[in-house]
C-alpha cells in the first residue's frame, strides 16, 4: 500500500499560505503568504524550524517564492505588483533588487534552468522574461501578451530555455526565443481545459507537461516534433497534444501539481483538502498513457491545499501548504 506519512505539521503563517519552494539542496525551503512574510525553514534535530524571517519586502500578499538553481537567490512575487530578489551576499538575506513593470498583482515567478533568466506573470495578462544582467541587475527581455486573461503560473522546461504559462483564459502557452532575431514568441497554445488552468509541471525530460484546472481535471500533454512516428501533424517546430485526462478523481479546483523528476510520481493539491498521488502504469502507452491514483490523503489540511512540492533530493519528501495557515511535510512510502 502506498501512503503519505506525516513527518511534521507547522503553524507557519498568519492566514493563507500560498506557496512553498525547496532550496536545491533539499535542506531548506521557503514559504510565503497572506501575512506578507517569507519564512526560511531548515532541518534541525527536532525537525523543521524557522531560520530566517524576511519581512518588509512587500506591501501585499506574497503569492510565490522561487529559489534560483544555484541556491544563492530567492525571488518573491507579490500582489503589490513587484518581484523582489533576495540574497545573502552581505551575510544575511536582504532584498537587493526589485523588478517592477507589471500593472498589478504578480502571481508567479520562475528561474530558468541556467539561472540566467527569470519569468513573471500576473493579472495584467502579461508574461515577462527578465535577463540577469549583472550584480543585482535585471533587464526585461520580453513582454509576452499571448493570453487574454489573468496569467496564473509560469514554469520553465527542466533543461531548455522554453517557458510555459497557465491562465484564467483556460489555455496554456509555450514560448521560445527565436534564434534569428532573438525575439520571444508564443510557439504553442494548449487548449482543452474547460476553465482556469491553475498550475503546470514538466516531467524530467521536458517532453511531457501535466496541467491542473478548476474544471477538476489533470491533463497530460506531449510534445510532437515534425515527422514523428505517430504521424501527428505538426505546425511550426512542434505541437503539443493532450494524451491523457484524469477526471473523476478531484471534487474541487486543483490548485497545484508537481511531477517528481526522480520517482515520476505526480502529486496534486486540491480545494477538497486532499493530496493525491498518481503513478504511471508500467505498461503505459507513451502516446496514450495510463495513470493510477495510488494514494489519497483525506483531510491533508483542514482547508484548501494550495501547493505541493517534491524535495529535489529524491528522498520522497513532499511539502504542502494551505489556507489553514499550515505547512506539512510528508514522506511518501510505497510498501
Amino acid at each position, binding site marked *: 500500500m502506498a501512503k503519505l506519512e506525516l513527518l511534521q505539521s507547522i503553524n507557519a503563517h498568519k492566514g*493563507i499560505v500560498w506557496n512553498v519552494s525547496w532550496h536545491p539542496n533539499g535542506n531548506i525551503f521557503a514559504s510565503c503568504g*497572506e501575512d506578507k512574510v517569507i519564512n526560511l525553514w531548515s532541518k534541525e534535530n527536532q525537525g523543521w524550524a524557522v531560520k530566517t524571517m524576511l519581512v518588509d519586502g512587500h506591501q*501585499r*500578499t506574497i*503569492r510565490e517564492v522561487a529559489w534560483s538553481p544555484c541556491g544563492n537567490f530567492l525571488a518573491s512575487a507579490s*500582489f503589490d505588483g513587484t518581484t523582489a530578489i533576495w540574497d545573502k551576499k552581505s551575510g544575511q538575506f536582504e532584498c537587493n533588487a526589485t523588478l517592477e513593470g507589471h500593472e*498589478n*498583482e504578480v*502571481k508567479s515567478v520562475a528561474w530558468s534552468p541556467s539561472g540566467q533568466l527569470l519569468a513573471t506573470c500576473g*493579472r495584467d495578462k502579461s508574461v515577462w522574461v527578465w535577463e540577469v544582467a549583472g550584480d543585482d541587475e535585471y533587464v526585461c527581455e520580453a513582454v509576452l501578451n499571448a493570453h487574454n486573461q*489573468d496569467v*496564473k503560473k509560469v514554469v520553465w522546461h527542466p533543461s531548455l530555455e522554453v517557458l510555459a504559462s497557465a491562465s*484564467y483564459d483556460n489555455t496554456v502557452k509555450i514560448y521560445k526565443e527565436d534564434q534569428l532575431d532573438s525575439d520571444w514568441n508564443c510557439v504553442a497554445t494548449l487548449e482543452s481545459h474547460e*476553465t*482556469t488552468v491553475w498550475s503546470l509541471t514538466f516531467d524530467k525530460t521536458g517532453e511531457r507537461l501535466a496541467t491542473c484546472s*478548476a474544471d477538476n481535471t489533470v491533463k497530460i500533454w506531449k510534445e510532437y516534433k515534425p515527422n514523428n512516428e505517430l504521424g501527428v501533424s505538426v505546425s511550426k517546430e512542434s505541437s503539443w497534444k493532450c494524451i491523457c485526462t484524469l477526471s473523476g478523481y478531484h471534487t*474541487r*479546483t486543483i490548485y497545484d501539481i508537481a511531477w517528481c523528476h526522480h520517482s515520476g510520481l505526480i502529486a496534486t493539491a486540491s*480545494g*477538497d483538502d486532499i493530496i493525491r498521488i498518481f503513478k504511471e502504469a508500467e505498461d503505459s502507452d507513451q502516446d496514450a498513457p495510463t495513470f493510477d491514483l495510488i494514494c489519497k490523503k483525506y483531510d491533508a489540511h*483542514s*482547508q*484548501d491545499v494550495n501547493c505541493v512540492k517534491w524535495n529535489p533530493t529524491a528522498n520522497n519528501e513532499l511539502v504542502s501548504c494551505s*489556507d*489553514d495557515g499550515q505547512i506539512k511535510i510528508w514522506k511518501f512510502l510505497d510498501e
Partner: protein
Amino acid sequence: MKVADNVNPNVYEKGSLREVTKSDLDEELKDDFDQREIFDIIRNISDPEHPLTLEELRVVEESNVIIDNENNLVHVYFTPTIPHCSMATLIGLSIRVQLLRALPSRFKVTVEVTEGTHVSEHAVNKQLADKERIAAALENNNLVQIINQCVRSV
C-alpha cells in the same frame, strides 16, 4: 452621482424573524447549520445602490440557499434585479465575504448567479469562484470599504 442601473426596483416584504424553539436553547444538543440560518446571515446585506436589503429586493431568498452539513458545503444563488446589473460581482462578493466571516472555516462556500438571470452570468460566476482574485480584491481598501458598507447592517 452615478444613476443606479435599476432606478425603480421591485421591493418585497421582509420575512419574519426566526422563531426560537426550546431545542435552540439546549446547549447539549448538536445543532447543525440549516438553510434558514445561512439565509439569516446574508438577508440583511444592503444593496450597493439602494437603501434596501438583498432580501427586500429578492436578490437572496431562503429557497436559493443549499447547505450540506455532512460535506461542509454551502451554495448560495443570488438573483440580480435586472439582467445587465453592473453591481452583480460586487453583490456576490459581499455575500461571499459575509459568509466567510460568519461561518466556520470548514465550509466550502460557493456563490453564483441564479441561472439565466444575468447577461454575464458565466463571467461573474468564474470571478466569484476564483479565490486568488477574491483574496487580491480584499486587499483593495476602497473595495473593502464598499463591501463593509453593504454588510454593516447585518
